[in-house]
């Protein structure tokens, strides 16, 4: 702290921290209260991406963060700018995505007076941020911004919001950027407890039907290599959650794919038959467990997570282990002996053969088939962003992920409209990779104004739109739970999406017949810039398997 720092404005100090943190991109939308930050941003080499709505700034930052493993950054103004962020922040929070959000605020002297464009955004976002700050003293600003990045990206990652009143941003600031972050109330546990590690190694040794269940935590901690090593060393099959897709290559024999209400049959059966279930960076969400009292009935459950509050929250846990998945798996690998489970793997093979993933009935072009072709043509190596609906589940089930950070989707909150901005963030993070958005007509219309952003950024992005002129996932719920009384699910005023793409200067293609699928996908793969493929499908398609409310995971409805 001894060294001298020249006096600069608070806003300038914020930029210094951003640069020190290596921030390259900021997603945002300006307005009066945040102009001091924009004024200084313009002086830096940081690239700003002007979105069309603030919610999408957070989604784009989240897509960027998930794809790159770095922290996403957003700017928004006070009042309506800040409240527009809320869904984006909640989405990032539910999926533990590191994002730092800066909002402008009315001047300190007016805070609390219902001033023009004032909202209590720190109050509003307490339940949906990992932490947040209202900065009242400019001398605290460098420390706070540094802390915000630290908190967002360490431990269990999550969004952190920093609300900066306009006068604070403009005030002279002397405080240097601290070299280290000292937070006496925040000390994540990374290394596994040695006793618990030994206990887990023992459970694995005793187990005859072990199942590794990998979630988003595996990807967040970069543990995919250790996971693969462990699975092969002890010959244990691996299932994943929705967020865990890509944590384990699906084109390998030990992979079972996704577990859950729309999980793969073989993965769901394996959960019900295993004698040891090792949850790695998962939350045991209700969409994963089905009826909780019937979940994994024969299994002892070990749960490894960096967030102690997740352990024992939803399912009974026989062996809790707090720690970073990478650290824990590395430590565990030193303790476990190679093992084989021929009978169990034989049983898995039988399950896989007896319960293949099938489509059921549908229209002329089958969305599942289209996604399988896409998986083949991109060899499971593209980055797939999705929206929320039936198409999201098909994208999860039929693509075949082989690498972490390639499935970018709103899993925990299920936010329609996430896909396009997240895909933009992903494309900016990985210009070297093919990025596809798999979306639906309902979801795309929640954020399609961002096509303008995509065009402006000159990115390359392929949009595969499954148009069923309806909210077909809701239709499916009404089919199963509401006597097929279809209400409020039909769109009769959808635009011509091909022409919509064209009027943005993008390429538009339409698929109405099966034989058009492969040529259209191939053409999109060759195009630079934005290509939108509208694929016309039947609204009567269903997502299978489906576990109905109250049923166990192995009581799946499958297509006839």
């Amino acid at each position, binding site marked *: 702290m001894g060294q001298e720092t020249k006096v600069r404005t608070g806003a300038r100090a914020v930029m210094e921290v951003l640069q020190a943190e290596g921030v390259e991109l900021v997603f945002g939308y300006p307005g009066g209260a945040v102009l001091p930050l924009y004024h200084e941003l313009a002086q830096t080499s940081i690239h700003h991406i002007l979105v069309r709505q603030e919610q999408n700034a957070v989604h784009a930052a989240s897509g960027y963060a998930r794809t790159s493993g770095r922290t996403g950054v957003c700017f928004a103004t006070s009042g309506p700018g800040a409240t527009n962020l809320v869904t984006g922040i909640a989405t990032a929070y539910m999926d533990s995505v590191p994002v730092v959000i800066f909002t402008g605020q009315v001047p300190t002297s007016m805070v609390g007076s219902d001033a023009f464009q004032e909202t209590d955004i720190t109050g509003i976002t307490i339940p949906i941020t990992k*932490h947040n700050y*209202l900065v009242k003293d400019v001398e605290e600003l460098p420390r706070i911004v540094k802390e915000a990045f630290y908190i967002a990206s360490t431990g269990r990652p999550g969004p952190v919001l920093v609300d900066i009143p306009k006068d604070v941003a403009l005030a002279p600031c002397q405080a240097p950027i601290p070299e280290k972050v000292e937070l006496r109330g925040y000390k994540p546990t990374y290394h596994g407890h040695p006793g618990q590690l030994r206990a887990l190694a023992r459970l694995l040794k005793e187990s005859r039907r072990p199942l590794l269940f990998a979630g988003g935590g595996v990807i967040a901690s970069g543990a995919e290599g250790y996971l693969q090593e462990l699975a092969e060393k002890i010959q244990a099959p691996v299932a994943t959650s929705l967020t865990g897709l890509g944590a384990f290559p699906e084109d390998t024999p030990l992979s079972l794919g996704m577990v859950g209400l729309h999980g793969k049959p073989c993965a769901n059966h394996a959960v019900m038959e295993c004698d040891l279930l090792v949850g790695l960076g998962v939350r045991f969400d209700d969409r994963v467990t089905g009826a909780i009292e019937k979940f994994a009935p024969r299994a002892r459950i070990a749960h490894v997570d960096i967030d*102690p*509050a997740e352990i*024992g929250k939803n399912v009974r846990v026989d062996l809790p282990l707090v720690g970073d998945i990478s650290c824990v798996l590395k430590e565990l690998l030193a303790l476990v002996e190679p093992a084989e489970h021929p009978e169990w793997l034989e049983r898995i093979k039988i399950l896989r053969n007896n319960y293949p993933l099938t489509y059921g009935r549908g229209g002329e072009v089958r969305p599942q088939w289209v996604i399988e072709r896409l998986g083949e043509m991109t060899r499971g190596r593209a980055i797939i962003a999705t929206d929320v609906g039936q198409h999201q589940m098909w994208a999860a089930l039929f693509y075949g992920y082989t690498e972490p950070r390639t499935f970018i989707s709103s899993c925990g909150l299920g936010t329609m409209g996430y896909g396009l901005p997240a895909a933009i963030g992903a494309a900016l993070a990985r210009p070297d990779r093919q990025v596809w958005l798999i979306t639906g007509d309902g979801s795309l219309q929640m954020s399609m104004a961002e096509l303008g952003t995509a065009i402006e950024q000159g990115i390359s992005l392929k949009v595969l739109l499954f148009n069923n002129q309806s909210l077909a996932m809701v239709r499916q719920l009404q089919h199963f739970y509401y006597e097929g009384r279809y209400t409020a699910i039909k769109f009769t005023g959808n635009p011509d999406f091909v022409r919509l793409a064209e009027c943005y200067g993008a390429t538009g293609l339409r698929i109405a017949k099966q034989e058009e699928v492969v040529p259209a996908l191939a053409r999109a793969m060759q195009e630079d810039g934005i290509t939108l493929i509208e694929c016309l499908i039947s609204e009567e398609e269903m997502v299978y398997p489906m576990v109905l409310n109250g049923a166990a995971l192995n009581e799946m409805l499958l297509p006839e």
Partner: protein
Amino acid sequence: MKRTLSVLVENRPGVLTRVAGLFSRRGYNIDSLAVGRTENPTISRMTIVVDGDEQIIEQVCKQLNKLIDVIKLSDITDDPHVGRELMLIKVNADPAVRGEIMQIVDIFRARIVDIARNSLIIEATGDADKIDALENSLRPFGIREVVRTGKIAMLRGAKTKGMEASGDGTGD
């Protein structure tokens, strides 16, 4: 099951909102919450009495520990501790019954701190049982108003639940 949690938090605006919001948001039952500065002006202590089964209490503690502003959390229910609450109680007291009330006040080692023509304010400290008993004894005279602080607590003996006791934020 009632548990007494002693929680050290950053002495910053908004911390109480974060803690109280957590309880209501997650549906936990707060019995009482008392907060004040500690010997270190940057740290406050909250004494929280919470009601719930073992699983709920465990979640309460883990969720509280997740708050960045929570420095240290201890469940002191089973440790020998002094627990105290302060109550102010205003009772009807016309001259005919004053003597009787003063006797009750003496028995509970409480104090009369204000006298009006037809009422008294009594101040009492003690554990929750004693405070409840005093309130019940005064009920027949007609209680006009009760103000209670909620419990504060301190470990007996030389042991402390301060920062130096452990220094990490993970509770014990």
